């Protein structure tokens, strides 16, 4: 399928509205990143897999979509929605789609600030890697020490992070620096299957596998001194980054509602171009149930990262001798969600349901959802890189609020498939290569490691630069990994 893209500026491209598209598509990219996407769309890949630009155009046909079907600079093909896809729907006339959230509900990143510097950590790096790998359960089917009863699971799904903090896993101030206080309202555990709950009860406080990780990083570069000062970040400082989501509970909610919304798409006669885009009207029974289940999944993921943060704090403190409380929250922000938010749409304040599929919420200055301490510059945007490369801390802007409904990239974005990746790298060689760069890896799976080789991802520097130069967010700091625990 040939997809026409029109250059709007050096970093913004448009798929003009044609046929049954209700809005145009908008992609953040430069010349070099847009070209392969156009080529991919034209070649119509074998195996019937939908190219990313076609997915952007498909989302633009969904009822109630506002302004544009947007893709961030880390765009790559997902299922239904492209990864890096952002779409806002009218809260009354719009739809909610499983494909716009994905199976890993509220996958996100949490960053903790430590009081130590790179030079202080370097001598204990090995010990720190071992302690973190021991204390934070990771890998396929990993289970944790926090065991909950089914009634407690329900409470966790309603309360989110505060439930875990009340039980001693963390500090009250952690909540203030978590998106939505770590508790999304409107979660209804009755709309989450008991199977989903049963799969979760041993997995609270576990990392999982795949692209999820826990990293010890140091701040290599500061770009925005004012924002860095407000966030409490300085060059050379060591931070801990946690990237994970809602584990099996989220996967099961996705699975359960894929079926429910498949039936709903037919029942309500929603014109979807692609089966993957199964959806339901936001105001329908099915739509409401799914949204309340997503909210529960989001709370579960916030609680999960809270529990992991607690374990990581303990591990860090025991190796370095600092007090656990001196390891403080920078922020926790999600990148696989659908949420009701108020935005200015064509000059008017409006309630919309925003799908962010592999896109980070990026609220700029002045928004009341941003913690008071950060309100003058917007909350930190946490963008994960890959094992051998950089991660970034960015901040939102007014322009990004208007153009992207307060959203940005979520990571580097894959450029090679996992199969290609395994063909190209072996886990053991990769370990050696990274060790030479001073990065210690701890992982339970060598083949999982090869799938996540840094070379399989797009250049995170370029992805971030595109968003920065498009003016939708600003670079604050670049981080380099020292220790990486992978599932």
């Amino acid at each position, binding site marked *: 399928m040939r997809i026409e893209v029109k250059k709007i500026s050096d970093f913004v491209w448009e798929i003009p509205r044609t046929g049954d598209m209700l809005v145009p598509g908008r992609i953040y990219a430069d010349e070099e990143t847009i070209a392969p996407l156009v080529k991919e769309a034209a070649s119509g890949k074998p195996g019937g*897999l939908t190219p990313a630009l076609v997915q952007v155009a498909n989302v633009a046909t969904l009822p109630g979509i506002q302004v544009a079907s947007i893709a961030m600079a880390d765009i790559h093909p997902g299922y239904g929605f492209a990864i890096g896809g952002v779409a806002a729907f009218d809260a009354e006339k719009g739809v909610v789609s499983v494909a716009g959230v994905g199976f890993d509900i509220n996958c996100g990143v949490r960053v903790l600030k430590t009081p130590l510097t790179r030079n202080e950590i370097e001598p204990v790096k090995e010990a720190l890697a071992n302690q973190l790998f021991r204390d934070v359960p990771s890998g396929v089917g990993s289970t944790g020490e926090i065991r909950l009863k089914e009634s407690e699971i329900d409470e966790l799904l309603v309360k989110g992070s505060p439930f875990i903090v009340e039980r001693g896993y963390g500090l009250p101030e952690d909540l203030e620096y978590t998106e939505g206080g770590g508790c999304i309202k409107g979660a209804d555990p009755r709309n989450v299957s008991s199977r989903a709950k049963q799969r979760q009860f041993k997995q609270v406080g576990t990392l999982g596998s795949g692209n999820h990780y826990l990293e010890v990083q140091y701040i290599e570069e500061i770009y925005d001194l004012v924002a860095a000062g407000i966030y409490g970040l300085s060059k050379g400082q060591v931070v801990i980054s946690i990237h994970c989501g809602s584990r099996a509970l989220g996967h099961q909610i996705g699975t359960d509602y894929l079926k429910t919304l498949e039936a709903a798409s037919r029942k309500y006669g929603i014109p979807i171009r692609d089966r993957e885009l199964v959806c339901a009207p936001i105001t329908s029974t099915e739509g409401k149930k799914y949204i309340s289940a997503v909210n529960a999944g989001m709370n579960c993921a916030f609680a999960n990262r809270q529990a992991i943060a607690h374990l990581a704090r303990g591990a860090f403190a025991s190796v370095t001798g600092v007090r656990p409380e001196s390891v403080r929250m920078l922020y926790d922000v999600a990148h696989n969600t659908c949420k009701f938010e108020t935005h200015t749409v064509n000059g008017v304040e409006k309630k919309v349901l925003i799908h962010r599929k592999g896109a980070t919420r990026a609220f700029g200055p002045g928004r009341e959802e941003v913690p008071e301490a950060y309100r003058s510059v917007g909350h930190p945007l946490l963008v994960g890189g890959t094992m051998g490369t950089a991660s970034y801390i960015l901040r939102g802007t007014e322009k990004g609020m208007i153009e992207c409904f307060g959203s940005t990239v979520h990571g580097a974005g894959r450029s090679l498939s996992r199969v290609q990746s395994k063909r190209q790298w072996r886990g053991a060689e990769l370990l050696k290569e990274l060790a030479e760069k001073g990065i210690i890896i701890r992982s339970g799976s060598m083949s999982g490691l090869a799938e996540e080789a840094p070379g399989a991802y797009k250049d995170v520097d370029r992805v971030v630069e595109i968003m920065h130069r498009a003016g939708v967010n600003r670079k604050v700091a670049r981080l380099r990994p020292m220790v990486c625990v992978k599932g």
Partner: protein
Amino acid sequence: MPYSYCEHVSDIGIRAEGPDLKSAFNEGVSAMLNVMFDTSTIGEGEVREILAEAPEIETLFVEVLNEVLSIQGLDELAFKRIETFEIERTAGGFRYSGIAFGEKFDRTRHGVRTEVKGATYSGLKYNHGANGTHALECVLDV
């Protein structure tokens, strides 16, 4: 090759073939399990019934894959393979029954690869070719 993997940037596409529909389902499940584990390291001491229903063969395939993942997660097992008993037509579509073989998950013994979050409707296809083979395809979210 009864099953193979397709190139897909973010996820893994699986393609399974068989002389009949039942063996195509068996191969499809094997394809998924081999993404998660080196299944040659898994024994067959535990068995679980796998049941699913869907309006079409394609969606039935996704249902079966997801049911296998759910049961495996619920009972903390590592499955090695599935044996399909029956795929029958019902008033609303199709009904599947089969038995999955595996054992209690043990990370020290089982060759662990990557977690599969779910089977998706992406790239979902069912072909009953002129040569009589049945082919199933779908993309796994990993």
